[in-house]
C-alpha cells in the first residue's frame, strides 16, 4: 500500500503534451483517472510506471522520489488495456513469471499461484493458453499476474474495455473486492462513467493533457469545477448565467440564466457561491418530474416549471426524458422505469419539473 504523488509532471511525446500534473492518491485508495480518448490517461500512468521519463516534475511513491528509477525498480503492477498476456506461456506460467524472475522457490510459486487463482476464480484455466481465453478470463489472469509479485501500486489501463456489458458489471464488483482484500493502491484508467462510479474511491478528470478536477466521485459528478467536467460527466442541464443576485440572508441567491428565460433559486448556505459564476449545472437524475394538471399554478421562484416531453429514451433501468418549456428552455431528466408508468410519459405530454435549490451547482 503506497501513496502516489506527482508534482508538476510535464511530459511531451510527439504532438502530445501532458502539462503540470499534480496528482495525489491516498494509500489503499482505488483512484480512477477518467477522461475522453486522447486525454493523456495512458501516458500519465505509463509515466508513473516509469515507461516514459518526464521533461520536468517528479513522481513520489510515499515520500520516495522515483522519477529517475527504472520501471522494474518501482514495485508497480501493470495491466495494460490489451492485457499483454505472454501468448507462448500457459496461464500458470504467466502468473508465475514475476515470481520466477525473483527466484522464488517452486513451493512459494505454487502457493502464490493457488492463492491468486482461488481469489480470482481462475483455477480451472491454469493449463490454458491466452489465445483460448475470453476477455473476462484474460482480465483476471492479467490481474493475477500483476498481483503475484505483491506490488505496492497497481496500474490498470482500461481493464474493462474489452469485455461485454454484463461481464463489466460483475468484474467491477470483483475488482473492488480484490482491492479491499489486498489493500493495494490502484490507479485505474477509464473513459466509462458507470465503471468509474462502480469502483472509484476518488476520481481525476483529465482532458487535453490537463488534470481538471480530482476528488470523491460525488464531488466530481455533483460539484464539477469546469464546464468540460460537467459535460463529460453528463450533467445535461447546463445553463449560461446572465445575472446573480445574492439574497441578503446569504443563504440563497436568485440566478437568471439561459438568456434570462430561466430564473433559479439557488441554495448558497454552504458558502459555495463562486465570485463570478458562469454556469448553473443540474444533474438529470436530480430533476423531478410529475404529471402537470391544467390548473397547476407554477411559481418560477420555487424552481418549478411546466414543460412538454420531446423525447423519451430507454436507458435500461432509467428513462432519459428530454423536455422543453414554452419559452424554449431544454431540460433533461432521468426517471426510474418503475416510476415512469405513473407519469404516462409520451411525446407532447405536459409535465411539471421540480428542482431542489441545493441541487443547483454554480461554476
Amino acid at each position, binding site marked *: 500500500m503506497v501513496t502516489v504523488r506527482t508534482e508538476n509532471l510535464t511530459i511531451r511525446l510527439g504532438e502530445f503534451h501532458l502539462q503540470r500534473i499534480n496528482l495525489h492518491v491516498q494509500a489503499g485508495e482505488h483512484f480512477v483517472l477518467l477522461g475522453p480518448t486522447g486525454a493523456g490517461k495512458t501516458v500519465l500512468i*505509463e509515466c508513473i*510506471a516509469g*515507461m516514459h521519463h518526464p521533461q520536468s516534475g517528479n513522481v513520489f511513491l510515499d515520500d520516495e522520489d522515483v522519477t529517475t528509477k*527504472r*520501471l*522494474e525498480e*518501482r514495485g*508497480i*503492477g*501493470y495491466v*495494460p488495456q*490489451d492485457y*499483454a498476456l*505472454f*501468448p*507462448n506461456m500457459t496461464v500458470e506460467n504467466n502468473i508465475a*513469471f*514475476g515470481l520466477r*524472475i*525473483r527466484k522464488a522457490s517452486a513451493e512459494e510459486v505454487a502457493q502464490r499461484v493457488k492463492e491468486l487463482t482461488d481469489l480470482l476464480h481462475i483455477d480451472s484455466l491454469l493449463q490454458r493458453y491466452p489465445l483460448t481465453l475470453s476477455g473476462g478470463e484474460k482480465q483476471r489472469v492479467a490481474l493475477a*499476474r*500483476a498481483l*503475484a*509479485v505483491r*506490488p505496492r501500486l497497481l496500474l490498470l489501463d482500461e481493464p474493462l474495455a474489452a469485455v461485454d456489458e454484463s461481464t463489466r458489471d460483475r468484474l467491477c464488483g470483483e475488482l473492488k473486492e480484490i482491492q479491499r482484500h489486498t489493500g493495494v493502491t490502484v490507479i485505474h484508467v477509464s473513459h466509462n462513467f458507470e465503471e468509474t462510479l462502480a469502483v472509484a474511491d476518488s476520481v481525476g478528470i483529465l482532458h487535453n493533457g490537463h488534470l481538471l478536477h480530482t476528488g470523491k466521485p460525488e464531488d466530481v459528478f455533483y460539484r464539477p469545477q469546469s464546464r468540460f467536467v460537467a459535460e463529460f460527466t453528463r450533467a445535461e442541464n447546463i445553463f449560461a448565467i446572465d445575472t446573480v443576485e445574492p439574497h441578503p440572508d446569504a443563504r440563497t441567491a436568485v440566478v437568471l440564466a439561459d438568456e434570462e428565460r430561466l430564473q433559479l433559486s439557488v441554495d448558497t448556505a454552504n458558502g459555495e457561491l463562486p465570485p463570478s459564476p458562469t454556469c448553473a449545472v443540474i444533474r438529470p437524475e436530480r430533476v423531478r418530474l410529475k404529471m402537470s394538471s391544467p390548473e397547476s399554478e407554477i411559481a418560477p421562484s420555487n424552481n418549478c416549471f411546466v414543460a412538454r416531453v420531446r423525447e423519451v429514451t430507454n436507458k435500461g433501468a432509467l428513462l432519459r426524458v428530454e423536455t422543453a418549456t414554452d419559452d424554449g428552455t431544454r431540460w433533461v431528466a432521468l426517471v426510474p422505469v418503475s416510476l415512469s408508468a405513473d407519469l404516462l410519459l409520451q411525446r407532447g405530454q405536459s409535465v411539471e419539473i421540480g428542482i431542489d435549490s441545493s441541487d443547483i451547482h454554480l461554476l
Partner: protein
Amino acid sequence: MSSNQETNTMHAGEGRDLFFRALLFSLLFAYVGFILAVLCADVLWLGRHDPGTGKSYLYKLATDVEVWEETKAAFWLSVVSAFVTSILALIVAVPAAYALSRFRLPFAKVIDTLIDLPIVIPPLIAGISLLVFFNQTALGVKLNDLLDVVYTRRGIVVAQFFVASAFCIRALKATFDQINPRFEMVARSLGCGPFRAFWSVSMPLAKTGLMAGWIMTWARAMGEFAPIMVFAGATPFHTAVLPVTAFLNLSSGHIEAAVGVTVLMIVLAGLTLSIFKKLGGQGYLW
C-alpha cells in the same frame, strides 16, 4: 424500370466483374507460367541429346569427374560460407533490428535508407566498393592486414555479409514489429531488466521469425555472385562458389555443367523457400 431492363443491368454488372477478374487472373497466371517455363527449360535441356556424342547432356554431366569435383567443392564452399555469413548476420541483425523496431532513433530515415542500400545497389557495384574500401582506404587496409579478406575465402563471407546482413535486418525488424512492446513493459513491471525482458519474452516470441529470417539470409548469401567474384575472386577449388562456378563453366563453353549447377541452385532455393513458408514467413522479403 421493367424486369427485362433490371435483368440486363444485372447482367452488364456481372459481365464487368467477370472481365475484371479475367484480366487479373490471366496476368497472374501468365507470369507464374513464365517462371515455371524458365525453370523447366533448364531440366528439359539437360535431357536433350548432344548431337556430337548422341548421349544426353545429363549423362555427359554425370560422367564428367572433373565437373563433379569442381561442383562438389563449390557446393560445400557455398554452403559453409553462407552458413558462417548467416550466423554473423544474425549476430548483427538481432540487436540492430530490435533497436530499429523499438526505439526512436535520431536520423532514423537516413539509417533506414543506408540499411536498404546494400540490397538496392547493383551487386557488381557492391563488390567494387568493397574492393576500394579494403584496398584503398587506411581503415580498410588495416582491416585487411588483420583479417586477410581480399581475394581469399574469408572475402567470400565479407562480400556475402555486406548484402545479406541488410537483408537479415529487414526480415528481423518485421518480426520484432509484430511483437507487442507491452509484453516487455509488463515483464519489466514484474522485475525483469531490459535485457532479460528482451531475452525471456521477445526472443521466444520471435523464434519462428528469427528462423525464417536466418534461412532466407542463408539462401540470399548462397546466391551472391558479382560481389564475390569481384572481391574474393573466381578461382576454382578456392574462391569459386556455386554461382561463380556456373559462370566460369558458361564462359568456358561447359554449358551442361553451367546448367547442372543452375538446376542444383534452383532446387536449393525451392527447398529453403518451402522451409521459410512452413515457418510462417511472410512476404516481407524481396
